[in-house]
């Protein structure tokens, strides 16, 4: 049974095989415009919706193909490996939602050096590593909207806490900074931010952190969770601890995941931008850039099909609209969509 072969023979065979295929494979490259959407992690409802939007854009774009990919855990390393393999596949454009703005720069630069268009959406890559960044909304709008929602639910008064994703999450950290700015305004002087905790986008950790918040701050009135994992875990914690009506959860969440919590009363309002539109726009824009129909340079605009056009500002970022607020009245309708 034992395999008996010589190193030498094998090596020779390998080289031969390699050489024969090498010539053939070099010629066999497609002419399609292949756009790769690299998301933070697979299996995330938000990105699944963005994927749907991307596919919609592809249908509208002749000769375009979409590769939807991402790591299974939201890490930069996973994304680096994936982008490396996309470079090897010589795709035309890569659209990234980054797990880490800085760590992706070297590999993104490498991709651009090999002639691949790189842009980011949702969570941005640092400017050196992309043509432009498509924000789902403006950070200041997102920050403000979440404080507004909390203020409205609480009647403008009470202790609030933030339960975020990982401590490194780029966009969450920017929004938290924006929220703090808004809280400094006189209109919100009675809202007291007592804590910021991190649930690492894991349900159990987020859940435990939420309960920790209840214990530490008996007078806590609201938790703002600017992440879809955090907001569901917080709402679950509120329900389990029988704090419905006493502590409210708000933040960013998907209607499909939040409908139940809205009806239970743990959540009064929450917001999110439309991930389908976001995915559509990002994919469309990438196609425009890859086919040289747009430059993506600062202060330029890009035509993006049914979403009309987006304008890129001086810092190389573009923004879609302000987040959309959901409550009892409309959540069920959108829950069927995303």
């Amino acid at each position, binding site marked *: 049974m034992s395999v008996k072969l010589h190193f030498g023979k094998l090596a020779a065979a390998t080289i031969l095989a390699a050489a024969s295929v090498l010539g053939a494979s070099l010629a066999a490259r497609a002419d399609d415009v292949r756009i790769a959407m690299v998301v933070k992690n*697979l*299996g*995330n*409802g938000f990105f*699944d919706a963005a994927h749907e939007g991307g596919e919609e854009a592809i249908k509208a774009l002749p000769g375009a193909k979409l590769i939807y990919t991402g790591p*299974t*855990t939201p890490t930069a390393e996973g994304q680096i490996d994936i982008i490396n393999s996309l470079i090897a596949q010589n795709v035309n454009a890569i659209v990234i939602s980054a797990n880490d703005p800085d760590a992706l720069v070297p590999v993104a630069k490498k991709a651009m050096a090999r002639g691949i268009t790189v842009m980011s959406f949702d969570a941005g890559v640092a400017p050196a590593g992309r043509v432009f960044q498509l924000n789902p909304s403006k950070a200041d709008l997102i920050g403000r909207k979440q404080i507004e929602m909390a203020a409205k639910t609480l009647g403008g008064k009470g202790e609030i806490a933030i339960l975020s994703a990982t*401590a490194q999450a780029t966009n969450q950290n920017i929004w938290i900074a924006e929220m703090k700015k808004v809280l400094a305004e006189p209109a919100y002087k009675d809202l007291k931010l007592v804590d910021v*905790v*991190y649930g690492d986008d*894991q*349900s*159990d950790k987020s*859940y*435990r*952190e939420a*309960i*920790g*918040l*209840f*214990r*530490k701050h*008996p007078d806590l009135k609201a938790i703002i969770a600017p992440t879809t994992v955090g907001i*569901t*875990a917080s709402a*679950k914690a509120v329900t*389990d*601890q029988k704090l419905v009506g006493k502590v409210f959860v708000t933040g960013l969440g998907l209607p*499909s*995941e939040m*409908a*139940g*919590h809205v009806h239970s009363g743990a959540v009064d309002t929450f917001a999110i931008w439309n991930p389908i539109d976001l995915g559509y726009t990002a994919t469309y824009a990438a196609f425009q850039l890859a086919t040289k129909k747009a430059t993506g340079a600062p202060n330029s605009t890009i035509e993006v099909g049914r979403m009309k056009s987006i304008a890129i500002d001086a810092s190389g970022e573009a923004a879609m609209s302000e987040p959309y607020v959901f409550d009892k009245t409309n959540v069920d309708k959108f829950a069927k969509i995303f």
Partner: protein
Amino acid sequence: MRKLLRAREAALALIIAGLVGLITLRAPVFLSMGSLDTIVTDGAILSMMALVQMLAILTRGIDLSVSANMALTGMVVALLSRAHPDMAVGLTMALALGLGLLLGAINGVLIAYVRIPPIVVTLGTMSVFRGLVFQVSGGAWVNAHEMGPGFIGFPTARLFGLTSIVWIAALVILIGWAFLAHVRKGRELYALGGNPVAARYVGIDDTHNLMLVYAIIGLVAGLCGYLWVARYAVAYTEIALGFELNTVAACVIGGVGMAGGRGSVLGCLLGALFLVIIFNALPIIDVSPFWQQAISGFVILAAVILNSRGDRPLGKLILRRTEAAPVAGAAS
């Protein structure tokens, strides 16, 4: 030895009491009923899993696949609940137990019959099971509102003031204790781990026993997989990622000897309790969550070092007997 073990457990209990005292000084709310209720509920799953992990360690093995088993079982029952929201809780539990058992049996066959070291087998199955979670779910999440109300409600439903998850844990622990202290098979595990050669001389068959150990681990992991998913009301690929190390840590803190043959249910429970208290206390006493990992690492190391004295074999006793009783039969 038994006295020493007792002493060790008493010391651990004292440390836990001291710890609780310190935490309460900083944040009195820690001792509130609500907080304690959370700790007990949180500790339930870790206690059960640490207990079965102890079975593996007792027999000189380790099971690194426990958390992947929990994730896979949890995901499968969650998907089933999504497809059939009205499925009875009893049936769900039966399915979870069955699937967990099957996964554990795979480990068992490879370890007991094919004779691959447990660490290798469970390292491999850990990867495979975790990958399968992704395969069966397509990477998607199963969210609270997609699962049946009974499915989610059961673990946190209350009976006499405690959640049913706690009652289940109590039952599992009781069975585990009875098994190890009062059932022949269970007691034999100590012999098997303490001295495998001697165990063979007294007719203890390691094949059957190892198969049994890993099957039991799988069974309980399956149950805990369901409880975990239902308690946190969500199922996704990374459920309980890294949890296997917590179960090992609980055993180590509880004085279970990694060399096999040594460890008690009580110690194991105290180890689990210790970890749960620390994890729950950190947010309350305002220690940055960033300290959590370093603290648990430090605690494990401290426990290992403190236990090291007990684990070291002493020399044979040759001298003392000379002083005590010169010759046994001298009087006759």
